[in-house]
């Protein structure tokens, strides 16, 4: 299914309804760390609207995806990337603290929303995730943390990581498939997913 779907305990029947990139300007030369936080919204709240609202209040907002659970509760996966040095600036021992604290503060604006699970990633953690999906480490040696996180986001569109990594070289995610190529593997996946042509495997 995908790393995020498999790791964050999504209930069977959860449905992804949209995804987004926040277009963060990050210094990829610096050491970066990332977090992913699964947030559940109120039953009658609008997943797309609340995810956009929440993301606008995150200082290290990077992107994410949202959807609806089988019980009707909307949810969103909020992705953040920050310099590892940001934690030291505020005297925190945990390099993920600035992002986790930012999400905690943003959640105060929506009293119906709650954080279900979160997890932090270093670049080494992300490399391990790719390796577990049969990706050669040498193929992603030059990938930055934003690239690696975009790859995991693209994987949520039901495209296997090895296909995404191979597509990064050719800048096309679907070389054997007629589509309007974006000449960027991530945007290629996202644009084809938006047309509704990518679906999960049948159980």
């Amino acid at each position, binding site marked *: 299914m995908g790393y995020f779907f498999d790791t964050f305990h999504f209930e069977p029947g959860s449905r992804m309804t949209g995804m987004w990139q926040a277009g963060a300007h990050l210094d990829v030369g610096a050491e970066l760390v990332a977090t992913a936080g699964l947030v559940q919204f109120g039953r*009658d*709240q*609008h997943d*797309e*609207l*609340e995810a*956009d*609202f929440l*993301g*606008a*209040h995150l200082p290290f907002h990077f992107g994410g995806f949202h959807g609806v659970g089988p019980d009707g509760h909307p949810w969103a996966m909020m992705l953040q990337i920050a310099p590892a040095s940001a934690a030291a600036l505020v005297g925190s021992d945990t390099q993920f603290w600035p992002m986790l604290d930012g999400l905690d503060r943003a959640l105060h*604006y*929506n009293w119906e929303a709650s954080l279900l699970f979160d997890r932090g990633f270093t670049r080494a953690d992300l490399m391990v995730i790719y390796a577990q999906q049969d990706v050669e480490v040498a193929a992603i040696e030059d990938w930055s943390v934003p690239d690696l996180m975009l790859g995991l986001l693209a994987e949520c569109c039901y495209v296997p990581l090895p296909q995404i990594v191979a597509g990064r070289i050719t800048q096309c995610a679907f070389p054997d498939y007629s589509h309007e190529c974006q000449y960027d593997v991530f945007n290629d996946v996202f644009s084809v997913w938006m047309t509704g042509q990518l679906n999960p495997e049948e159980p």
Partner: protein
Amino acid sequence: MSGYGGAALFLRSEVVNAPQRVVDVGLLTPSDFVWFLERPMTAGLPERLAEFFFGCARDLHPELTVGAVQDSLCGLEVRVLSSTDSRVELQIEVDGDTERPASLNFLTSRVGLTQAAADVRVLESAVVQDPRPMPLMDW
């Protein structure tokens, strides 16, 4: 009520001198958050706001068919500026008693407006603050 881009309108009510209800109005953007506290509220305002929000969610062109809601007592005015099939642009104005901007334009979704139409009725259920002093805890 949440909006795209991190904007939101907060409303909460209470009774200060029965039977006078008051409403606190909060305008939030990612760069600013301002509250207008304890504005006297005209009876029926929650109902009119609920009809307004539901009309915005329901009508094809609410900017043409849904009239603004004004409450001169609390100084709140809400109107529709534009709309698409899925989104509606609102303008919120509050008679300012501070130097901060008292106007907020934001896009929200029709789904969000439907929920706001239901939520805003809660303003009618404001309860009187208990005027009794807190009991001493002298155990």
